[in-house]
């Protein structure tokens, strides 16, 4: 009976340290690098994400209410002290693609009452739609606010017949009342891992990329396996002197890499490369 199982396995249910006590797959740790110098703010990543992950287009009204479902969003910033040309800065805006940071010690995971969001051994912060009851506590506790809730029953309104034929068959279509977020295109990762496993090898670098990385025309987004020392992502992390399980990096100040809000000890898996602009001109 499950009650005796509970007593027998009580230690497995006790509170664990978020990063150190996790079970980790030694072969895989998915991570990303986003070069803000290369990002042009073209929104191709967002579009690709909508197509790949069956994200509903919510329409103008819901969008203006803040109910958009963009798992990756392009944020627009005016630089400090920029000269303004009308309503816009003279030298243009700066962009930052924001998506789920796949934190190794995620604030959303501890607060979910039903364990619908949890950590996978390969370092993803996964979301189980069937388990989610929609308390939205995860979103309230997410410092990046990258979790998106299905405020409406989207399938009928976003993909009226015959548009449902465009849906990606590898990805669940979510119903109203569940939380969703960027999965690092987990359907691609699982497929690649399965293929590699049948061939008895590890997934090679570049063999699998997320939809956003694939679509980026300037290759601003690099995706890969951090556990593989030779992967491009691991080499960039190394070069930028960023350690995954650290809330304060001891690194050379001239290096551009940083992680967003890492002092909250979320251990995010995405490194951003600061944009370099000359101070004059």
């Amino acid at each position, binding site marked *: *009976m*499950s*009650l005796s*199982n*509970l007593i027998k396995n009580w230690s497995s*249910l006790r*509170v664990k340290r978020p990063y150190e006590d996790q079970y980790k797959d030694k072969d895989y740790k998915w991570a990303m690098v986003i070069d803000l110098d290369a990002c042009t703010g073209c929104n191709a990543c967002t579009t690709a994400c909508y197509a790949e992950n069956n994200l509903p287009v919510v329409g103008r009204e*819901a969008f203006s*209410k*803040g*109910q*958009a479902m963009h798992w990756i969003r392009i*944020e627009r910033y005016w630089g400090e002290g920029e000269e303004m040309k009308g309503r816009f800065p003279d030298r243009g805006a700066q962009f930052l693609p*924001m998506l789920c940071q796949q934190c190794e010690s995620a*604030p959303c995971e*501890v*607060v*979910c*009452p*039903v*364990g619908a969001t949890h950590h996978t051994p390969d370092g993803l912060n996964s979301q189980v739609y069937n*388990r*989610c*009851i*929609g*308390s*939205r*506590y995860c*979103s*309230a*506790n997410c*410092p*990046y*606010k990258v979790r*998106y*809730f*299905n*405020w*409406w*029953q989207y399938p009928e309104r976003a993909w009226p017949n015959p548009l449902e034929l465009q849906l990606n068959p590898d990805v669940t279509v979510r119903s*109203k*009342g*569940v*939380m969703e977020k960027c999965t690092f295109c987990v359907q691609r990762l699982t497929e690649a891992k399965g293929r590699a496993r049948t061939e008895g090898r590890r997934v090679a670098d570049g063999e699998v990329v997320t939809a956003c990385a694939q679509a980026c025309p300037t290759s601003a987004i690099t995706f890969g396996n951090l556990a593989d020392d030779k992967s491009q992502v691991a080499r960039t992390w190394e070069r930028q002197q960023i350690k995954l399980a650290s809330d304060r990096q001891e690194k050379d100040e001239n290096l551009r890499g940083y992680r967003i*809000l890492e002092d*909250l000890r979320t251990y995010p898996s995405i490194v951003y490369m600061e944009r370099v602009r000359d101070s004059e001109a």
Partner: protein
Amino acid sequence: MIHTTDESDIEIERRFVPKAKDINEDIAWAQINKDVLRSMERPRLMYWVIFLASLALFSVGVYCEVYQYRNGLGAADLENPQVWGLYIATFIFWIGMSHSGTLLSAILHIMHADWRKPIYRFAEAMTTFSLMTAGLFVLVHLGRVWQFYYVVAYPNERWTWPNFNSPLVWDATAIGTYLTSSIVFLYFGMIPDLAICRDNAKGFRKKFYWFLSAGWQGTDRQWANFRVAYMTLACFLIPLAVSVHSIVASDFAVSQQPGWHITSFPPYFVAGALYSGCAAIITLFIILRYVFRFEAYMTMPILDKTCRLTFAIAMVWTYLNLIEYASAWYGNDEYAKQALIFRATGTYAPYWWAMNFLGSIVPFVLVFKSLRNHLPTMMVVSLLLNVGMWLERFMIITPTLAHGYYPWTWTGDWWPNWVQIGIVAGSFGWFSMLFMLFCKIFPAVSMYEVKEMVYHRFMASKARA
């Protein structure tokens, strides 16, 4: 006691020795029975006015909830950072309301403060019904309410457990326990009174009270067992009352949102809970006193004591509130400080200042004895205090979600829409509907405890004389 029949002497006595009695100890036991039973028969017209108004409000709430259930939570105009809106704010409000019943019935029972006796029954009913209302909000705010039972730790073959790290699971457990215990406590303390109802009822009512009074005969052995059991339940309930609101506070204190991540939240919440509960007791005291003609039992000196208690708790709340501001202001956490500044100067600033004014300044009305004994003033003041406490909860949720860590998600223009307001209004209707029904069906004044009170006071005055 006055040993003269001279009218003028009595007049002088009344004017110069204003020794207000909590209750007139000459009141006959049969009279107590008669008065309380009569309240269950024919209340004033106002009863039906209040009942129908609450029924109407409740229907509004039901309509809004059905609309929201069919369309999804988008109907309530919630959005990405503003994920909770009024629902969780009002949830905290109702949980808070539930605390004073326990304060009056359990804590003051253990401390032998016998002035609580005529008013604890309705306070206890208020506890139960406000917990039920709070429970509604837990359901209303869920995206998939039909699967709410996933939060409960029930044994199942699929090995799926709730996440015991999550404060929401603690919440569900604590509220469930507290609700069950307060229903048991309310019912248990009512058994001797239900027996009186049984003895005076006819027809189907007799059967109803006969069933509920569980064979109460009033024998010595029954009374002895009753006392022990009642005291045990009271002792059991007190830590529960403190824990339940501490756990609700942990929902916020455990999260890392700036403005919530504050160590002093649990005592602050408990103090706020007692505060709004005491204010609600004053409101309901005045209403019941009028509606059920309880002037002889719900007397002005008792109201006076309740008001003084409310004032004391208001000051505790003010103190803890100032601590919260001070720790954010002087602390090293820049995010928390910014969140505080946003509350005081941002979009929701008028409500923040109103909250502080209503919560900390208005209670000073209770300092003046003449005002404490003026029923219309007390009615207005007690309602204002609760408006202040509701605003406090609104200020905990909305500005905090509007001003988190990540500047891109800051929103300063979010306001609740009609669905949310309708459901919140409906919750008030639901509460007062249940409460009014309770007072009509069950004795709202504890007959046996008032008799005890009268008896003890009488013996004491005889000993003095």
